């Protein structure tokens, strides 16, 4: 499974900065936003470990708990 990541949140923050800066014609702030979002994405794309393995025992535990819940 894909590992959890804060990339979406951080990119959204920079997107808000870009939007605000473009509306008010603050060009330096808009470029800060663009570079920030780009750097965040770049960091994300260079992660070496981007997957987590969910062990079969854990899945079995979930399924059994679910089935016990359904039966009860």
């Amino acid at each position, binding site marked *: 499974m894909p590992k959890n990541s804060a990339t979406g949140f951080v990119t959204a923050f920079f997107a808000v900065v870009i939007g605000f800066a473009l509306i008010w014609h603050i060009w330096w702030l808009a470029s800060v936003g663009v570079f920030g979002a780009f750097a965040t994405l*770049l960091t994300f*794309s*260079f992660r070496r470990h*981007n997957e987590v393995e969910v062990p079969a025992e854990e899945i079995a535990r979930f399924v059994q708990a679910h089935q016990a819940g359904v039966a009860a």
Partner: protein
Amino acid sequence: MNIAVAIDQIPQEALPSASEAGPAPKRIVVAYGFWIFLLSDIIMFAALFASYAVLVRSTAGGPTGAQLFNQTTVAIETVCLLFSSYTCGLMSLAVNSRRYFRTYLGALITFALGAIFLGLEIREFLSMIAIGAAPQRSAFLSAFFTLVGCHGLHVTLGLVWLTVMMVQVAVFGFAARVQHRLLCFSLFWHALDIVWVGVLTVVYLMGVSS
């Protein structure tokens, strides 16, 4: 015996059902997701084409396409972009056979052709703005700069993406996820080429002939 009959005669047990075969390979899932993005991009371009077609005659007394467009520049741009799609295909082949040198070479030529295209387009835009044919001059020019500029922006981002991917090939080698990303890049690049064929036809050829 034709093929359809031959497939019918395979015992059904031989083909596992989709759920038994497990999830689709990651390569398929990634490409499928990227196709959905590309289709949304195409829909955006379709809207821009439609607004251009509506506004093309609204020149407000300003210059028309026939007066502004330089066919030689556009011809060179088109050749560059179409040929860069070919070299992008060569790069994909090199990636599939894990050849570093050919991958870098294909990427370099693709990048150079894309950069020439972009340089010519920027020069065209600047020369138009210099003679007063800026986006605010008329509805036709607003639509023109939006449509062609949006395509140019895509090409710019594609060049940035290609550069990042070559760094990733150097750092990670042909790891599975690098291959997936290169696959997406080549889909993106070919899609841009198709959009450019539309731009060439609708904006430049039809603009000069009418």
